[in-house]
């Protein structure tokens, strides 16, 4: 099946510093594509570059093909037609991403009327439908309300409803549950899952939380310092991780079956984009590092169809914790 979004060799530089270094990936409709990585790995910048929302002074290269159009080459007015309409984004903190002084109805319908030219009444009805879809109780009353009157979880649902208003093909969700309570998280994730099953929506789920990934993502791509280090079906990546960084991430998570095996954190800290190490960016923290790891950037090796990782170390090194 032809992919919905094909990104080839995406590079993002901000102020002369390289943030994203040659990302290539594909998204299918109806799929939840997980982008995992710590802060500073470039995952948010990857997403923002697709929507042209990078800070001023950012330069991009590469291609991002959506429906035969390269998103990276669109001018401002063409980009505005894509945003909210073909590709929508949901951000991390629902408190600050909703305008505190505009009613819910206004925030749900303004881009509906701009993109689709809907009349006020129709837009309002659609807003009610959207709120029902995201399971906000009492949608009519909710429309008259303001963000501060809702809880964090409800605000996130409202944000999702807002993103879905114009029926986009792709929804990018950047840390959608990080600012929420654990109990509320599950509800949001279930919602995303249901939406993509019901409507064929493609979701790019960006998060550092591997637990969230395992709950809802079909595929996971792990990023480190602006590059892909491992990718594949979620279950495979998380249970049979091959790249030392991914394995390090998993080893440092508490596991109910691990018994008395101590948690093993990854030593050191992720590099800031300006101080990215030569060769493989992970080599200073990697216990398997070889000389060549310092010298050259390891290419992405295909282990199987749809499964790859970027490390020259023997992929059959046994996994330490199941």
């Amino acid at each position: 099946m032809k992919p919905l979004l094909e990104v080839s060799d995406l590079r993002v530089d901000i102020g002369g510093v390289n943030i994203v270094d040659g990302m290539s990936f594909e998204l299918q409709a109806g799929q939840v594509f997980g982008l995992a990585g710590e802060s500073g790995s470039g995952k948010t910048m990857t997403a923002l570059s697709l929507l042209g929302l990078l800070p001023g002074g950012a330069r991009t290269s590469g291609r991002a093909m959506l429906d035969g159009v390269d998103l990276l080459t669109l001018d401002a007015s063409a980009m505005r037609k894509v945003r909210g309409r073909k590709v929508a984004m949901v951000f991390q903190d629902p408190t600050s991403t909703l305008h505190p002084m505009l009613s819910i109805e206004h925030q749900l319908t303004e881009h509906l009327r701009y993109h689709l030219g809907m009349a006020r009444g129709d837009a309002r009805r659609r807003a009610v439908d959207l709120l029902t879809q995201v399971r906000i109780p009492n949608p009519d009353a909710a429309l008259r309300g303001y963000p501060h009157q809702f809880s964090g979880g409800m605000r996130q649902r409202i944000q999702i409803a807002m993103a879905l208003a114009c029926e986009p093909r792709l929804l990018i969700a950047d840390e959608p549950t990080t600012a929420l309570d654990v109990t509320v998280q599950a509800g949001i994730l279930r919602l995303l899952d249901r939406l993509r099953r019901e409507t064929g929506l493609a979701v790019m789920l960006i998060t550092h939380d591997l637990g969230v990934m395992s709950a809802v993502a079909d595929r996971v791509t792990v990023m480190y310092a602006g590059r892909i280090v491992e990718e594949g079906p979620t279950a495979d990546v998380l249970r049979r991780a091959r790249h030392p960084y991914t394995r390090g991430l998993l080893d440092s998570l508490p596991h109910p079956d691990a018994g008395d095996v101590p948690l093993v954190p990854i030593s050191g800290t992720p590099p800031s984009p300006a101080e990215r190490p030569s060769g493989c960016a992970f080599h200073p923290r990697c216990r398997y590092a070889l000389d060549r790891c310092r010298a050259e950037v390891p290419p992405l090796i295909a282990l199987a169809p749809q499964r790859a990782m970027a490390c020259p170390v023997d992929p059959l090194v046994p996994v330490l914790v199941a």
Partner: protein
Amino acid sequence: MLRTAPSGISISQPSARTNRLIRAIVRARTRHPLLFFIGRRLVALVLLGVGVTAIAFVLTHLVPGDPAEANLGQRAGSDPVAVQIFRERYGLDKPLPQQYVIYLGKLVQGDMGESEQSRRPVRADLAEYIPATAELALTSIVLSGVLGVGLGVLAALQQNKLTDQVLRVVSLGGMSMPSFWLALVSLYVFFYQLSWVPGSGRLDPVVSRPPAVTGMFTIDALLSGRIDTLANALQHLILPACVLAAFNMGLFTRFTRSAVLEVLGNDYVRTARAKGLPEHAVILGHVLRAASPPVVTVIGLAFGNVMTGTVLVENIFSWPGIGQYSFRSATTLDLPAIVGVMLFVALVYILANMVVDVLYGVIDPRVRLT
């Protein structure tokens, strides 16, 4: 009924009746928040008024200056009989606290006494001079508001670029110029050299005043369809209004700029863009809306600046308004007139504050609904 708290201190338990009263007040307050709000403001107004009268009273009686001598001039002032008559007439021979109480009593009835200078009720003086100043002040606030806010938004959007730097200098310049000097310079250039505008007053001597509705010549002329009177009044109005607007324009530009910059960094602006909204909708509908509370506050405060400015500007343009009146009253220690002016100004201050508060509630639902 006394109860003793564990620490041994006795607390008196409020009676059941007081409790009921308190509960009733709280209930009424939650049911009619707006009324209580206005009510509180009115109480503040009264208290402020009392405070103002007290200050004026103290000031004019504190000191070496003798109102009788100041008003009667040199010859009459040295005649003890004339001075005595003057004193008796204005009640200056009674003890101070008594004078104050008498004054307050009359005030409640709307009688602000007679001006020692003009021999007229202060109320009449105020009624004559207030519209002139109102016309000037409102025009200048509208001018400075529209220009200031517009330029402030521009400066914020062009942050750190040349436009921004230039606007910064211009706005600081506007705030650095003494209004009396600016008035003189502009009069010299536009009246004396270029003859674009008349030099003083509100209307040319040959033009008759329009029938009084508001007392503001421009509006009255418009209402009665006298277009040439309107034109003449506008000609007289434009220069003093601009001079008066200079300071506030600079102030509003600075304030709007920083308010907008503050907002531009917020996430909801990014969300608005991510929805694909056109830039003008983002700026007007989202950014300006969020930036308006501090701007509204400053515009409210600007009324105070304008009142200060009118004293100097009216002086130079011979504009017969409250500014000139207050100057005359202050320098002759005309107590009723001084207090009258101060009360009027305090009223304007409170009203402006109230309008600002209400606007806050309209703009920001968080204020309104909590």
